[in-house]
C-alpha cells in the first residue's frame, strides 16, 4: 500500500480548487457532509450517460448494467462494512435518517410491546432519537438514555441498571458534536449479556476509521452516503440477515411485493422487501465507487492521519487562545475523531462561522441535531470544526488566524 498522501487525495476533489471571497476554500465541515472525489462524480455521470435504466425486471443491456451497478454498489458497501452476506444484509435507504425510521418502525413494531425498553445515549443525533419517540407515542415503549460525563464520555456507571430488561441499545459509534468514539465492542458485549440487540449509528465514524460489523459484533448498523465521500440521496442499513428476514416491510409499493391483488399484498423476501419504488441507482453506483476509494486509501491510514491533524489542532488551539476557545469534547486525544466543537468566548457560534467564512473557512454553527446533548451542557450551539482525509495541518493555521479575527471583532 502506498503511504497516505492527503495532497493526492486533494487533487481528486474538484471543490478544493475553488476560491471564495478570493481565498481558497478551507473545508472544515466534513461531519456535516464530506467532499466528493471526481471519480465518484464520474461514476454517477457515467451511469446516466451510458447505463441509465431502471433496475430489475429488464432484459436489455443498459438495464442489466444498471442492475449490476446497483447490486455491485450493495456488494461494495457490504464489503466495506465487513458484511458476510451483503446481498441479504445491505438495505439502501435515502439517508441514515430513513434507515433509523425503517429499523425503529419495522423491527420495533414487530419486536417491541408497551413497556419494553430501548436504551439510547444523550449524545445521539436526532436521527437516532426522534423515530424512537414516534414509536413510543405509537405503541408505548420506554426510552432510556445513557448519560454523558463531564469529560464528554459515555457514562457507563448506570449501564447495567438501564440495560436490565432492555430489548435494544441503539447508540452512536462517534458523536457528531463531541468527537467522542464509543467503545463498541465493550458496549455490545455488555448489552448482549442482557439479551439486548445493538444498533450502531456509524454515520460519523464510517468514513474516518475501520468498520467491521463482525468484529464489532453488533446486530445492525447505519451509515449515510454523503458523509462517506459518496452522494446525497443514499443511506445504508446493515443488519444480520436473520434479523432482516424476520422484519416486516416498511414503505409499501413496487418492488417490495411478491403479489398484489385488490384484496391485499404479500411482501417479497430478502432486502427487496425494504426497497420500495425505484431505488437510488446512480447514488448506489456513486457510493460503491466512494467506498472502493476509501478502501484503497486504507481506513487505518485515514484514521491515523486524521488523529494527527486532530491532536495537532487541539494542542495549538489550547496554546494560541489559552482558554478563550474551549473545546466541547475530549481533549486528551484518546478515543476521539476529528470533530472539534468550539465555544469561543463572547462570540456566538453563528458569528464565529460568519467571520470564518470571510477567510474561506467552512465550519458549522448550531445544535448539530443533538439537542439533548446541547441541553446536557447548557449550550445553545457550538462552532464545529471537522476534518476529512483531504484536510491539512495548514487548514488549522487559517482556522486559528480567523478565530483571532473573530475574537478581536467581538472583543
Amino acid at each position: 500500500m502506498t503511504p497516505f498522501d492527503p495532497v493526492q487525495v486533494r487533487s481528486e476533489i474538484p471543490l478544493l480548487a475553488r476560491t471564495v471571497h478570493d481565498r481558497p476554500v478551507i473545508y472544515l465541515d466534513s461531519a456535516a457532509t464530506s467532499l466528493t472525489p471526481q471519480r465518484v462524480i464520474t461514476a454517477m455521470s457515467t451511469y446516466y450517460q451510458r447505463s441509465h435504466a431502471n433496475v430489475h425486471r429488464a432484459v436489455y443491456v443498459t438495464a442489466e448494467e444498471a442492475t449490476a451497478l446497483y447490486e455491485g454498489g450493495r456488494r461494495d458497501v457490504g464489503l466495506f462494512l465487513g458484511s458476510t452476506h451483503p446481498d441479504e444484509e445491505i438495505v439502501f435507504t435515502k439517508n441514515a435518517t430513513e434507515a433509523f425510521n425503517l429499523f425503529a418502525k419495522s423491527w420495533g413494531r414487530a419486536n417491541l410491546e408497551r413497556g419494553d425498553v430501548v436504551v439510547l445515549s444523550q449524545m445521539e443525533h436526532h436521527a437516532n432519537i426522534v423515530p424512537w419517540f414516534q414509536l413510543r407515542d405509537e405503541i408505548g415503549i420506554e426510552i432510556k438514555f445513557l448519560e454523558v460525563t463531564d469529560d464528554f464520555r459515555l457514562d457507563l456507571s448506570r449501564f447495567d441498571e438501564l440495560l436490565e430488561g432492555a430489548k435494544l441499545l441503539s447508540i452512536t459509534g462517534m458523536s457528531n458534536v463531541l468527537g467522542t468514539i464509543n467503545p463498541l465492542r465493550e458496549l455490545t458485549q455488555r448489552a448482549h449479556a442482557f439479551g439486548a440487540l445493538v444498533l450502531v449509528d456509524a454515520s460519523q465514524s464510517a468514513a474516518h476509521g475501520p468498520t467491521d460489523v463482525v468484529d464489532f459484533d453488533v446486530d445492525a448498523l447505519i451509515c449515510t452516503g454523503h458523509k462517506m465521500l459518496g452522494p446525497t440521496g443514499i443511506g445504508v442499513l446493515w443488519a444480520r440477515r436473520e434479523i432482516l428476514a424476520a422484519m416486516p416491510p416498511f414503505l409499501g409499493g413496487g418492488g417490495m411485493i411478491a403479489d398484489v391483488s385488490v384484496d391485499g399484498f404479500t411482501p417479497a423476501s430478502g432486502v427487496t422487501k425494504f426497497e420500495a419504488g425505484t431505488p437510488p441507482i446512480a447514488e448506489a453506483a456513486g457510493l460503491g465507487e466512494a467506498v472502493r476509494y476509501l478502501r484503497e486509501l486504507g481506513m487505518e491510514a485515514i484514521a491515523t492521519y486524521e488523529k494527527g491533524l486532530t491532536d495537532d489542532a487541539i494542542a495549538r488551539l489550547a496554546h494560541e487562545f489559552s482558554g478563550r476557545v474551549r473545546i466541547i469534547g475530549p481533549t486528551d486525544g484518546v478515543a476521539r475523531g476529528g470533530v472539534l466543537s468550539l465555544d469561543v468566548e463572547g462570540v456566538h457560534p453563528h458569528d464565529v462561522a460568519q467571520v470564518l467564512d470571510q477567510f474561506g473557512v467552512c465550519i458549522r454553527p448550531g445544535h448539530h441535531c443533538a439537542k439533548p446533548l446541547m441541553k446536557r451542557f447548557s449550550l445553545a450551539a457550538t462552532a464545529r470544526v471537522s476534518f476529512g482525509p483531504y484536510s491539512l495541518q495548514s487548514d488549522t493555521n487559517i482556522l486559528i488566524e480567523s478565530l483571532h479575527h473573530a475574537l478581536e471583532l467581538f472583543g
Partner: protein
Amino acid sequence: MSNLDDLYREIILDHYRSPRNRGELATPPACRAEGFNPLCGDEITVFIQVENDVLVDIKISGHGCSISQSSASLMSAAVKGKTLDQVHQAIATFKQLMTVHEANIDDPEPVAVDIRALGELAALQGVVKFPVRIKCAILAWNTLDQGLQDFVS
C-alpha cells in the same frame, strides 16, 4: 473584510454587547411571546405591556447570535412608548427591509424602504446581503408580532 463590516456595523456590536431593555416583566399584567429559530438555536422571549393602545413597556430575554440579539435590542428601543399603530408600522417596515426579491436571490438588493424612518434600525440593512442571517434579524420582530396578536385575542 469589507463584507463583514457591512454586517457587523458598530451600532450592532454595541447593542449586542449592551442590549437595551433586557429582562422580564411580570405576566400578567404583561404578555409574553416566545420565538425561536430551530435552525440555529436562537431563542427569544418578548414581554410587552400595553396600556391604552400604547406599548408602555417591553423587555427581552433569551439568547442568540449578535444579529438576533442586536435586532431585538434595537427593536425594543424603537417601539417602546409607541402607539400600537406605530409599532405595527415599524414591524411592517422592518420586514420589508429584510425582504429579498427572490428573482435577485444571487444578488440580493433591499427593497426600497424609507431608511430615515428607521433610525438606528437602518444599521441592520447589511443583513440582506447574508440571506441566512435574515432569519436571525427577523426573529424578534416576528415574536413581537405574535405577542401583539395574542394580546388582542
